[in-house]
């Protein structure tokens, strides 16, 4: 409190000084007042105080809100707030089955993901891979890996098809998701996926995740007593990148 008062006094004094100089200069260079002009006597002292106060309030930082931005409209929020949570929050009313979904999928998705959601080239495979997660080469698909169905719906709706995102209607998304589930043998072909039947579908890997446990499982990496000398006897090459030979070539050479 004392400090800000001090600052206020100092800045007031400065502003006063500047104004004094300014007026002095201005006085010399302004044109003469017209003869019939009336000079109004001013209380200069209080005028300066007011100006000084105005400057001081400019440099004082704002506390609390800045009153920037504007209220979002309901329609705006609805347009962007499309995320779907695992508990179904955000899921719109609608439905679709794998039969309709197959048609959509072959037209809009199969170009990358293959007719049976098996994934072409390096594009993601969406089906298969059940019980492979502990294998040497796990196959991670919607069926084998994705823990929540909401994630699939959310992603298909917001980010797919690749190159023309957000172009599927809600019913088309239900149908497409149904086809992906069907490709994973997670639903029968006549199952109608809807906001109501959504949680009848069981995702095989729902319980396949743990929350980051590095601080416990890897607590031995927090080790200040590292070995600095004579730490091992022998060093042998056990693998070479040049032998594998998968590094991109330099375009220059």
């Amino acid at each position, binding site marked *: 409190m004392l400090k800000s008062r001090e600052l206020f006094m100092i800045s007031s004094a400065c502003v006063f000084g500047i104004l004094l100089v300014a007026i002095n200069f201005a006085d010399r260079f302004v044109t003469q007042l017209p003869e019939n002009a009336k000079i109004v006597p001013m209380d200069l002292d209080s005028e300066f105080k007011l100006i000084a106060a105005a400057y001081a309030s400019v440099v004082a930082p704002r506390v609390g809100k800045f009153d920037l931005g504007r209220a979002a409209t309901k329609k705006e929020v609805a347009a962007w707030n499309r995320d779907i949570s695992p508990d179904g929050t955000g899921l719109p009313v609608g439905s679709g089955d794998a039969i309709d979904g197959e048609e959509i999928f072959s037209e809009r998705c199969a170009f990358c993901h293959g007719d049976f959601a098996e994934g072409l080239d390096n594009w993601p495979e969406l089906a298969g891979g059940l019980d492979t997660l502990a294998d040497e080469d796990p196959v991670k698909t919607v069926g084998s890996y994705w823990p929540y169905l909401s994630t699939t719906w959310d992603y298909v709706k917001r980010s797919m098809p690749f190159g023309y995102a957000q172009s599927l209607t809600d019913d088309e998304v239900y149908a497409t998701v149904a086809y992906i589930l069907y490709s994973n043998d997670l639903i029968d072909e006549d199952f109608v996926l809807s906001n109501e039947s959504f949680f009848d579908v069981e995702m095989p890997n729902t319980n396949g*995740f743990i929350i980051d446990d590095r601080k416990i499982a890897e607590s031995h990496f927090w080790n200040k007593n590292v070995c600095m000398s004579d730490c091992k006897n022998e060093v042998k090459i056990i693998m070479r990148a*040049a032998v594998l030979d998968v590094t*991109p070539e330099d375009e220059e050479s």
Partner: protein
Amino acid sequence: MADNFSDKKPSRRQFLAGAAALGTGATTAGSLSASDDDPLITEVQEWAQITGDGVDATPYGLPIEFEKDVVRRNVGWLTADTISSINFSPIHALDGTITPQGCAFERHHSGAIELRKEDYRLMINGLVDQELVFTYEDLERFPREQHVYFCECAANTGMEWAGAQLNGVQFTHGMIHNMEYVGVPLRTLLNEAGLNAAGDLKGKWIFVEGADASSNGRSIPMEKALDDVLVAFKANGEALRKEHGYPVRLVVPGWEGNMWVKWLRRVEVMDAPVESREETSKYTDTLADGISRKWTWAMDAKSVVTSPSPQSPISHGKGPLVISGLAWSGRGAVTRVDITIDGGKNWHEARLAQPGTKMALTRFYLDVEWNGVEMFLQSRAHDETGYVQPSKEELRKVRGLNSIYHNNCIQTWWIKSNGEVENVEIS
């Protein structure tokens, strides 16, 4: 990042970045014997006579042509399409710690979009007192902060889990950049919308998404959101580049790059994570038993020798050699880096160019007198939490081979007696 590291297709030839051509460097510049007169000195050179470019020749400059090989590169077999892919910063050829924007790695999920400042909108919605929309101009009116932070893709070094694979530090460790950001703390914007509606903030989340087709939505715990997350619009003094999220990106210090949402358009306050595609099917780390870790956001302490390295071989022969590298930690500042030249038998403390700062790259050096002996060069970072960068073997013991992400293992470079360098694994 990359969708399938195990499905790789080998390229045709070996990449040695001219190491063999350079050899021991007998004829390269700087190696002339004392008795020879150097014509570069004794003869008047063209550039000392004629004039150079005027100040109007280059309104915005690119590096001189002689540096044209210092560029981002990508690995074709890694992803199906360059639109949803990654490239790598040329860290073998950089020094200091700041990554120039023009060669800082890019990762897109639906390509780099062009979004004008005039068309930019940022929405804050969900559990807030007043849902708000900001324009770009609005953001520039909030108090700003400036910080240097590294951004590392969670998949950096991901191709090396199963063994030494890519022969170049650009490819093994180049999914990283380090920039000086200016922006508004996210907490300021959240306070502007008001968090009373969220009630107890413990256990609350935000969901952030971008304006591009992928939207790349991610959930971030409120504690982090209110701590050091920055809504950034400037990097290294100038506007963000298109490929890094122009005009506005999120900066999430120390945490995996995927959370640094580009073209940031929405922040939603929520009472639970969304469990989006990028935080369930991707950016989760599968352990040997098939169980996967999720929410592994912090990037553990890591370091690598950037030179000498396969793309930056020793070309000058025996004598003084500068060993240089980068170290960083997503949990705080780097406090120390150890270097071994004999594959881990003996370690030496490196010289930090500057004291480490939180969640930013630290440059280290070890100045040695190389006698041409074959070396197995490694570096080992320590951070302020006491964490020490583990060996690949130690990491695999806990995580197996299929984690893809968060590989912060110690890297080994095999320096041959002719100065060539190769990525290897050692016992």
